[in-house]
């Protein structure tokens, strides 16, 4: 009997799917996902949409932070760039989503690379600083460039449309978000089977060694930042289509920190981790909301405290995960899976 995973060739080692079973399980899971909205209530459709968007953003951030080892605190701003690009293009020129979504990604990628340039010459922490600055500078531009962004009042976004079909409900939008998320995740997964992806990982592990081995550190760091910001821009674009009205308040600095929380809790340097983390962080406030409303009968003050509870639990989750499970949910998932794979002989 086969107990465990045995890879006997490089091809098996490089395969996207570990086994035929994994491929089939994924196919069933995807069919389930496609069927999900037919059974979900309006509330859960909204949550599902947000989860899908968060997954795209988290995967993008994980490419930069988890795989390339660069820390970005400006994710909220790059989301905003994506969202506002979509808003401006679709409200002003009435462009359909196959044009606006990639353009939003590109706009965010350019913004990201622009702020990346000064810091990429330096190591680690400086990118965090520069992206923090990017957050405030982009925020300033968004508020003051009123003709394009609507300033503090925000801008309304027409529904995503193509050939007269309008994705004007959470239900319909889901069928844009889901395939996009799958495609982008697939791309990310594949990226790390290529030379480029391996260069990213080499830079994360030791930049000087990477340079010595012939990786152009500056170029690949910039590329990682561009790819990552592209993902985040796409997420921002979808966010605009979902919210239908965006204003600077939609993109506080804490949003960027939420995304960092996702990849920390999910697992750095793991595509699966991005998914799990995005699901966890998006569901956390919903679960807390259910819990507080259930408990509000016995503790009436709880509802007013909800905002602080949400923030506190988020922070606590990050701190506890970092102390007790630094590799995140993805590592936990692997442990559980391996346990069952070998059950009952778990040694």
């Amino acid at each position, binding site marked *: 009997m086969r107990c465990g995973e045995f890879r006997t060739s490089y091809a098996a080692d490089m395969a996207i799917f570990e086994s035929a079973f994994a491929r089939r399980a994924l196919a069933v899971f995807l069919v389930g996902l496609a069927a999900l909205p037919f059974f979900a209530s309006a509330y859960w459709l909204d949550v599902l949409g947000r989860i899908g968007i968060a997954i795209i953003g988290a995967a993008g951030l994980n490419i930069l932070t988890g795989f390339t*080892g660069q820390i970005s605190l400006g994710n909220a701003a790059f989301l905003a760039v994506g969202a506002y690009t979509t808003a401006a293009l679709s409200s002003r020129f009435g462009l359909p989503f196959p044009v606006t979504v990639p353009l939003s990604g590109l706009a965010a990628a350019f913004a990201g690379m622009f702020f990346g340039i000064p810091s990429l010459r330096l190591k680690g*922490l400086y990118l965090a600083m520069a992206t923090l600055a990017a957050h405030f500078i982009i925020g*300033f531009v968004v508020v003051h460039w009123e003709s394009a962004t609507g300033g503090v009042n925000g801008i309304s976004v027409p529904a995503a449309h193509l050939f007269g079909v309008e994705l004007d409900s959470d239900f319909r939008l889901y069928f844009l978000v889901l395939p996009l998320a799958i495609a982008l995740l697939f791309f990310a997964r594949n990226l790390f089977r290529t030379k480029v992806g391996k260069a990213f990982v080499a830079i994360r592990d030791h930049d000087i060694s990477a340079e*010595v081995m012939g990786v152009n550190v500056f170029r690949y760091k910039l590329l990682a930042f561009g790819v990552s910001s592209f993902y985040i821009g796409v997420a921002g674009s979808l966010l605009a289509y979902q919210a239908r009205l965006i204003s600077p308040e939609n993109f506080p600095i*804490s949003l960027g920190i939420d995304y960092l*929380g996702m990849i920390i809790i999910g697992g750095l340097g793991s595509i699966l981790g991005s998914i799990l983390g995005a699901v966890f962080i998006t569901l956390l406030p919903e679960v807390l909301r259910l819990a507080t409303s259930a408990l509000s009968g016995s503790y009436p003050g709880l509802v007013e405290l909800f905002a602080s509870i949400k923030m*506190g639990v988020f922070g606590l989750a990050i701190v506890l995960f970092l102390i007790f499970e*630094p590799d995140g949910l993805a590592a936990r998932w692997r442990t559980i899976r391996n346990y069952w794979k070998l059950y009952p002989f778990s040694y």
Partner: protein
Amino acid sequence: MELFLQLVLNGLVVGSIYALVALGFVIIYKATSILNFAQGEFLMLGAYVCLAIMTRFAVPFVWAFVLTLGFSVLLGLALERIVLRPLIGEPVISVIMVTLGLSSVLKAIVQGIWGTDTRPFPQVFSTTPVQLGPLPVSQGYLWSIACVTLLLALFTAFFRGTRAGIAMRATAFSQQVALSMGISVKRIFALSWSIAAVVSAAGGILLASVRGGVDGSLAFFGLKVIPVVILGGLDSVAGAIVGGLVIGVLENLSGGYLDPLVGGGVKEVAPFVALVLILMVKPYGLFGKVHIERV
């Protein structure tokens, strides 16, 4: 001209507080190589605790100030022991994230206890302005600058003169060498966190008394400190002081002159524009040690 002087003065007051908070930031970075993104929350918490001691127990300001500093020492020690120590040796991102998580928790605690409304901070300094040349200056400003100068002088003396201070500098220079000289690096880490908490709390209290109110926006000052330390150099105490004053004056001047032209917000964004420019021109700041890596 009057406007200019007024703006410069405001800048110096705020800048001196930046310098104080940046000092805490730099101390933590030097000793432990951690960027503490919870610095602003230390500051906010300090202001709230001081306010609570003053209003709840009717303690005079000076004693409340001292008690708050005592509280901050304990806070710094506890956080270092519970949260930061398990992460020694973990990658940079983990440590940065833990301070971000910490900032979230502290903010939540403050909001949970004191709510989000602005609370008036008792008038601790006399309101009659002092005439300083052509300029009427509020006494709170002068006291604030005096306090900051005193604290900065004390800490400079501490770093130069005392055993603990020298041990801290040694640890900052090289942890391994410090260990081999019999310095307890863990104790130094704890010490630097409590010093950072103390200077931030002091900054928070002074800021609250200058502004006359306490609210969640105080936490924002923790982020404002980042341009300061980048300008001064991440690992330079002198840089923190110079950087604080420069950024304070810069944001007030740019706010005062440019805000009417573009309609607000310049004051908040100017330090960050400066940050990007500094990273382009002189990435290690004015006094920072240039990092050279040899393999």
